[in-house]
Structure formats: structure tokens, C-alpha cells
């Protein structure tokens, strides 16, 4: 472990490859300690309201696996599914010696100052492990909540889906409605073992002055599937993330979907990379971004190492305001003959032809535009639980109305 700490220290001032540089000294390292609550109904009314608005199910029964980190304190952790282990990271580190095999193995601690800080000033996180062959019936929901003004929250999560197992993971990140500034650094290391499947949906619900730096690394083994959905519809000061997925086993599959709206004042730099390192692997990266005044960089990188691998990348953006801008940067990197990789990128506006077509059917201009926007954001996210799909549809439906 000491080697890791050392490596972290050397990266403590290393700027990130992408996104605006953040002065980490501007955020408080300490936060008040919060009490553990066996039931989320034990939280204050405002907190519960914030959580519910972010989509967290606060009552037991409906969702049986929940982890809640408030500021630096694990406030709640409950699990009652056979074969699904959900622990606060502090407990996991104590309990599982084997965790060191997964600690900073999918993400390099020396990546940048944010990964370094997550190690040096580690505040918490969650550990999920689904045992071999177990198909988890209920999703695991994890919520990372920033409630104290001006703090940095440094999170490190490890997710392991063992051979042949299945998991739906829903991560919701939110900030208290009363707070202004805050920084969230979130390292997630995801291991999808042979034949396993994970659908990881991340819904961000921050605030106008919150800075977010998720750092995600995923290792996918033979015949396994990694599906990721990232949804950001609310304001954020700056969000930058570039998950790196490595398909190491034969026939592994990765699919990354991003749906986001950047409002005025938001700087969003998101995307992902998939490295296809084994034969028969497939990948798809799709992003639909809308600027209503914010600045967006939509990235995507596919690297093909083996003949016959197939991958496709789509970065589509709509600018709906005079002020916003969108840069779409799709990259393909074929390292060997016989790869099949393609991309399409488009940044534009809503065509008047589409609007008038719908108006000719009786919709007014606003209704027509909202319908087109909704359709644009409507990415097919496979394998979502029905209620989550409905929720995302609703968020998109509302954003269709609110972007006007």
C-alpha cells in the first residue's frame, strides 16, 4: 500500500488530461461526522427531500440494497439479497484482505491530481461484490451526497461481478439544495468477470457551483458485458470524466451511453474510451448532448488491437442557445489490420423542416421542438429495470420541455 501512497504523492499536482484545472486547496478537507442511520427515514426532512428528488428510494422494501455516503460519513448501508455483498469501503478494507488485488488496478492512482487526492485524502466509498452465478434481482443503489458547504468529497468504490453473475448498479450523486460550492472526486473500479453482466447507470444531479471529477476504470473478461449509462440533466459548474474500459477477454462487450444537457454556466467534458484487446470483442459509445448555454466537449475513443473486433462511436450534439458550444471529438485508433471501427459525429440545431412538419400535424412550435429534443435524447439503453427506464424517460421528457 505504501507504494500506492508514494505514487499518489508524485501525482498530487498533476493536471488532468482534459477539463479545466481545479485548485484543490480551495476546498475543505474536513467535514463534520454524521451519524449512521439504520433507516433512511431517520434523516432530516430536507435531506430526505433532496434524496427523493435525486431518485433515491429512501424506504426499505422497494430497494433492498442501498449505500449512502453523506459528505465523509457512511450514513446508511443495507443489503438483504443472497449473494450480494454491499459494504462501506472502510469495512470492506478491514474485512477483505483480497481487496488489494482490486485497489487501483483498473484506475492508475497516478492518473492525475484527482486520483491522487482520492488516495491521500480518502473519505469513503462502497464495495459491491456479486457472487459467482448470482443474478441480483434488485438493483444496488448507491448515493453520494454533498451536504456541507465548500468541502471536497473523495470517494473510492470497487465493484466486482464474479463469473456468470449479473448486477444492476445505480449511482446517484447529488448535493444539498442549500449548499453552494463543493467538489466531488469519485474513483470507481469495476471488474466484470467471465460471462458476467453489469449495467451501471449514473445519474448526476449536482448544483451550479459543484465541481465533479469521476475517474472510472473497467476490466471486462471473456464473454462478459459492461453497459454504462450516464445521465446529466441539471446544472453543474464543471464535470469532467473519461471512463476507460478494457475488454481483455474474448467476446467481451462494452456499451457506453451518455445523455446530457449543459445549462448556462456548466462546463461539461465527458466521454469514454474502450480498448478492444481480445478477439471477438465489440464496443459501442453513444452520446447525445444538448447545450442550452453551457459548454460541452463530447469525447470518444476506440482502440482496436485485434483483427475482427467491431466498434462504433456516435457523438451527436444539439446547440439550442446563442451562447453554448459543443465540441465533438470522436477518435478511432486501429492498431492492426482487420479491425472494423466507425464513427459519426454531428453538431447542429433543430431543423426548421422537422418543426414545421410536426406543426403541420397540429403541434405548436414549442410542442414540436420538445418532441424533437426528446427524440434526440432518446438513446436505447438496454437492460434497464422498468422503473429506471421510466424515470429516465421522464427526466428526458421534462428536459425536452425545459430546454425551451
Amino acid at each position, binding site marked *: 500500500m505504501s507504494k500506492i501512497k508514494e505514487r499518489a504523492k508524485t501525482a498530487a499536482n498533476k493536471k488532468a488530461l482534459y477539463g479545466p484545472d481545479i485548485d484543490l486547496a480551495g476546498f475543505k478537507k474536513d467535514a463534520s461526522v454524521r451519524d449512521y442511520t439504520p433507516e433512511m427515514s431517520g434523516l432530516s426532512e430536507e435531506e430526505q427531500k433532496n434524496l427523493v428528488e435525486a431518485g433515491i428510494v429512501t424506504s426499505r422494501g422497494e430497494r433492498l440494497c442501498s449505500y449512502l455516503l453523506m459528505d465523509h460519513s457512511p450514513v446508511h448501508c443495507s443489503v438483504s439479497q443472497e449473494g450480494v455483498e454491499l459494504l462501506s469501503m472502510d469495512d470492506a478494507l478491514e474485512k477483505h484482505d483480497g481487496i488489494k488485488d482490486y485497489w487501483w488496478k483498473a484506475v492508475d492512482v497516478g492518473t492525475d491530481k484527482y486520483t491522487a487526492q482520492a488516495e491521500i485524502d480518502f473519505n469513503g466509498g462502497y464495495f459491491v461484490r456479486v457472487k459467482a452465478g448470482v443474478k441480483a434481482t434488485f438493483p444496488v443503489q448507491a448515493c453520494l451526497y454533498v451536504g456541507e458547504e465548500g468541502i471536497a468529497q473523495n470517494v473510492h468504490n470497487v465493484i466486482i461481478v464474479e463469473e456468470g453473475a449479473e448486477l444492476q448498479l445505480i449511482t446517484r450523486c447529488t448535493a444539498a439544495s442549500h449548499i453552494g460550492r463543493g467538489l466531488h472526486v469519485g474513483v470507481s473500479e469495476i471488474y466484470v468477470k467471465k460471462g458476467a453482466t453489469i449495467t451501471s447507470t449514473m445519474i448526476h444531479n449536482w448544483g451550479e457551483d459543484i465541481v465533479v471529477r469521476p475517474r472510472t476504470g473497467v476490466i471486462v473478461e471473456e464473454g462478459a458485458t459492461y453497459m454504462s449509462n450516464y445521465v446529466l440533466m441539471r446544472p453543474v459548474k464543471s464535470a469532467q470524466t473519461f471512463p476507460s474500459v478494457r475488454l481483455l477477454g474474448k467476446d467481451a462487450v462494452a456499451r457506453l451511453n451518455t445523455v446530457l444537457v449543459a445549462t448556462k454556466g456548466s462546463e461539461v467534458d465527458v466521454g469514454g474510451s474502450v480498448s478492444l484487446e481480445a478477439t471477438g470483442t465489440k464496443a459501442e459509445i453513444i452520446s447525445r448532448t444538448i447545450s442550452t448555454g453551457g459548454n460541452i466537449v463530447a469525447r470518444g475513443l476506440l482502440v482496436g488491437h485485434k483483427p475482427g473486433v467491431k466498434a462504433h462511436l456516435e457523438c451527436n450534439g444539439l446547440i439550442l442557445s446563442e451562447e453554448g458550444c459543443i465540441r465533438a471529438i470522436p477518435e478511432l485508433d486501429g492498431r492492426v489490420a482487420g479491425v472494423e471501427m466507425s464513427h459519426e459525429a454531428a453538431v447542429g440545431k433543430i*431543423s*426548421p*423542416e*422537422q418543426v*414545421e*412538419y*410536426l*406543426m*403541420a*400535424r*397540429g*403541434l*405548436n*412550435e414549442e410542442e*414540436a421542438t420538445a*418532441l*424533437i429534443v*426528446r*427524440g*434526440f*435524447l*432518446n*438513446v436505447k439503453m438496454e437492460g434497464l429495470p422498468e422503473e429506471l427506464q421510466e424515470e429516465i424517460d421522464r427526466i428526458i421528457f421534462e428536459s425536452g420541455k425545459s430546454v425551451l
Partner: protein
Amino acid sequence: MLLEIKDLSVEVEGNEILHNINLGIDHGETHVLFGKNGSGKTSLLMAIMGISRYKITSGSILFKRTDITGLPINERAKMGIGMSFQRPPTIKGVKTGELVKLINNGGKSTEGIAESLNISEFLDRDINLGFSGGEIKKSELLQLVAQNLDLVLLDEPESGVDVENIKVIGKVIKSLLQKHLRRQRIRAGLVITHTGLILNYLEADRGHMLLNGGIKCEGNPREMFEAIQNFGYEECARCQR
């Protein structure tokens, strides 16, 4: 009179396409527009619908005795005007069935119509995404049925459609234009046709021929179509009655 077009001139990107058009359609009537490519037929339909690219420079359009010349497209639709587009835009992520439901204005059960058009299965597909020529025509018709209109503007409903499907489309248009009714027939139609095939499916009341942006001949649609076939558009214009 349901629709009254008076001295209408229309320009597209600064070029005048239609010059002083006069045309009237009454309740329950079906009118046919003939004319060679580029004669201005589609422009006339677009101008009636209110599509912004087709700018009215003079004249007026009255619908149900109200001047609609400056009315937004959706207001015209609400008043009962609808149109089938030749090349409608694709709208990704929105299912055709969803739009049909949304615009249903007390029209017949659209499921039944979808079935008779053999398009039930593509109600689940994105609007116009990857539709074949025939599928576009059918989907446009389905939407018009749902809208429950008083005046339907059909832009070449049979072009690009195979022989078998022309029959299907012809039947639906016949029923859309309430040909099964006599006295109670209310819905009117203005139909563009090149091939004249659609005339085999509906009794049209009157024909108009457009040439170089003006109406050059009017009369019995079957006689006119025969004359055009035998002598060409120019010749037909010369025999102006």
C-alpha cells in the same frame, strides 16, 4: 366555399414560383393538380399549409371564410387543413405510433387504419427513419386519417409505390375523401398526380393544370389527363377553354 385562393403569388428564396393563382374548392370536392416537374404544384400545397420557405408575396388564402394567409402552420392544421409530404423529414427517437396518438383528433381508430395499410408493425419505428417510398406514403396517410381534417392536400400519393400497394393506398384515400358518402360528404381534397393512377380509385370533381407557375387549364380531370397523355402539357394549355 371551403378553400378560396385569390390572386396568390408565392416565392421561394427570392424567386417567384407561383403567379396570381385563383382556385376554389368546396366541401366534399376532390380536385386534382396536374403539371410537369417544377411547375409549382408542390409549392401551391406548401403555401396553403403555410410552410415558411414558401413565401406569399401577394394575394390571399381563405379557409372556412377566414383569411389564413398569415396564420401559423399549426393554426391551419387546427382549422382542418392537413398535408401528406413528398419527402418528410426523419425524426429520430420518436415512434410513429406515438405521433399518431398525439395528433389523433377524434379520427377513426388508427389501429384499424394501420392494419388496413399493412403498417401496424412500423408504428414502433422512428418517424420516417429508413422508410421506403411506399411506407412514407402510408405513414403520411395514416397521420392524415388520425387528424380528422376538412381539407387534405396529397402530394403525389402514388409515386414510388408498387402496383399492389397502389391498390391499398387508393382504397384508403377513397375512404379518407369520404367517397362512400354522398350528400354528407364534407372532406375535400387537393391531389397532385403525375401518373394519374390515383384517378382510378377516386372520382375527382375538377382538374387544374399548372404550367410555369400559373393555372393554364381547368376542367374534367379524366379528360384533362387524357389530353395531357396524348398531346403533352403545353398542348393541353393551348386548348384553354
